[in-house]
């Protein structure tokens, strides 16, 4: 079976967030990038597990500049067979989805995996866009997935519960926590990754339908009010009268 895993990079969470002087650009100096955890820990690993069980290949794909190659090599070190980088600086989710769709439309993939969202912009929209371009079913936030022949059984997280679904392949699926257990690349994987193919392809022309025009910092929070631990009536009074939340 053929699996495609969409991977993205994101600033490491503890990064200090700053912008250019006119607040229109995100300041990338000193930022440490990691593979988006949902892509690395859950989407990629489940695709590898399914390949190990059913045979086939796992291809990792990223839309981004050459500096993303480190993150792509990590996907190869964890176990992907080959990788594709579409050489572009995307400004919108739809641009990314369009480029991946162009690659995938004749690729014969049985399942295309994404993370449920990137942890920097939290869009959670590329999966649905990709599925629409490819006219495929889309299951978001999967916390469990099994394949039997051409049928996928999936648990999908919904507010306050889970849905249990059946879908025929091919399909697009986004990964939530629980879909797999994180794998740490070993020395052999890292060495092998250097020899695995990473194909760079040029993007198809597509206008971004939206883009970020400015950044700002959230309003500063008022200093914390420290309260007497002996007097919880006072906290209740403040929550009722001052904060008006109870």
């Amino acid at each position, binding site marked *: 079976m053929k699996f495609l895993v969409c991977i993205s990079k994101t600033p490491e969470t503890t990064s200090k967030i700053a912008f250019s002087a006119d607040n229109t650009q995100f300041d990338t100096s000193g930022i440490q990038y990691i593979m988006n955890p949902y892509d690395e820990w859950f989407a990629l690993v489940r695709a590898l597990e399914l390949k190990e069980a059913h045979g086939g290949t796992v291809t990792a794909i990223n839309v981004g500049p050459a500096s993303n190659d480190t993150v792509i090599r990590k996907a190869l070190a964890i176990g992907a067979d080959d990788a594709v980088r579409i050489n572009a600086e995307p400004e919108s989710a739809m641009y990314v989805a369009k480029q991946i769709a162009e690659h995938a439309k004749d690729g014969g993939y049985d399942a295309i995996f994404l993370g449920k969202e990137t942890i920097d912009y939290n869009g959670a*929209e590329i999966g649905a866009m990709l599925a629409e371009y490819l006219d495929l079913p889309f299951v978001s936030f999967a916390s469990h997935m099994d394949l039997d022949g051409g049928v996928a059984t999936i648990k999908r997280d919904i*507010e306050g519960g889970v849905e249990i679904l059946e879908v025929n392949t091919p399909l697009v699926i986004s990964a939530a*926590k629980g879909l797999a257990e994180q794998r740490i690349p070993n020395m052999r994987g890292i060495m092998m990754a250097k020899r695995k193919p990473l194909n760079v392809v040029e993007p198809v022309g597509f206008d971004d339908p939206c883009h970020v025009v*400015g950044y700002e910092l959230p309003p500063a929070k008022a200093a914390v009010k420290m309260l007497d631990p002996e007097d*919880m009536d006072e906290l209740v009074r*403040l929550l009722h009268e001052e904060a008006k939340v109870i």
Partner: protein
Amino acid sequence: MVLVFAESPKGKFEKPAFEAVTYGKKVSEMVGGECVAIAIGDAKGAEDLGIYGATRVLQVNDPSLAHLDSQMYASIIAQAADSVGAKVVIVGFTATGKSIEGRLAVKLSAGSVSGASYLPTVNGGFKVKKSVFSSKAIAEYEVTTEKKVISLVGNSIQPEASGSAVTVESFDAEIPARRITVKDVDTIKGVVPLPEAELVVSAGRGMKSPENWNIIEELATVLGATTACSRPVSDTGWRPHHEHVGQTGVAIRPNLYIAAGISGAIQHLAGVNNSKVIVVINKDPEAPFFKAANYGICADLFDVVPRLTEAVKKFKQN
């Protein structure tokens, strides 16, 4: 013209639907035209969407629509958008909305802003802000296409009763074939799901062991709150996975978030620091969570939590 998808995943309209319609009404005042709501499925009470500002309510009902299939739902919403001439289409940033929004954007060739938490501005381009980088920044997006799709984060607007019930019109859509079969739905009974909860009581490793959670549950019960936890607590199986909040868990924005025995690591804060009011109970005065809190109590949680429960009980009796 604005079209709002009023979701009813549990067979009834709830807060996410009312918030989306309230937001849609305000957007229609900016871009001109009416705010039309579309409902899919057999939920009763669609006429009440008028109360929140919808001037027309369309409903499509068919047995095949009982559960979400993003292809079916997005197709119907896009047909409704075309039929009313909608320039802006709004859905919730919910499990349902997130499955549909990207499809709608592609179908309508519309730029999209997903997870918006502010109203747009329309002078000098159509712009919408959302919170990014674990709430460490706000980004403003400009959408340059003629049509726009927005998904709205829960609790970023309060439902406002600005109109009155309207007659529901049945909308005649072409319904695509279902490709996803829903075998079963397991819901957690009796509690408000975390993403919708207005009051949340949460605890972390400071609890020492899972047997101690009764004091957290008692406080949650007297408040009518939902319980949550930090990641290590769910990873070690002390609490169920669906309670895990933070960057890799559920992101919430309740009115009140009470955190006991949680240090306040950045990854935890990422999922909770949009809460309106945060109360932190921690015995370490240096705990980073105090910096993100509105009210802090520096003491042993095993003393403070039961005392707070008693104080809430007393308050509720009066």
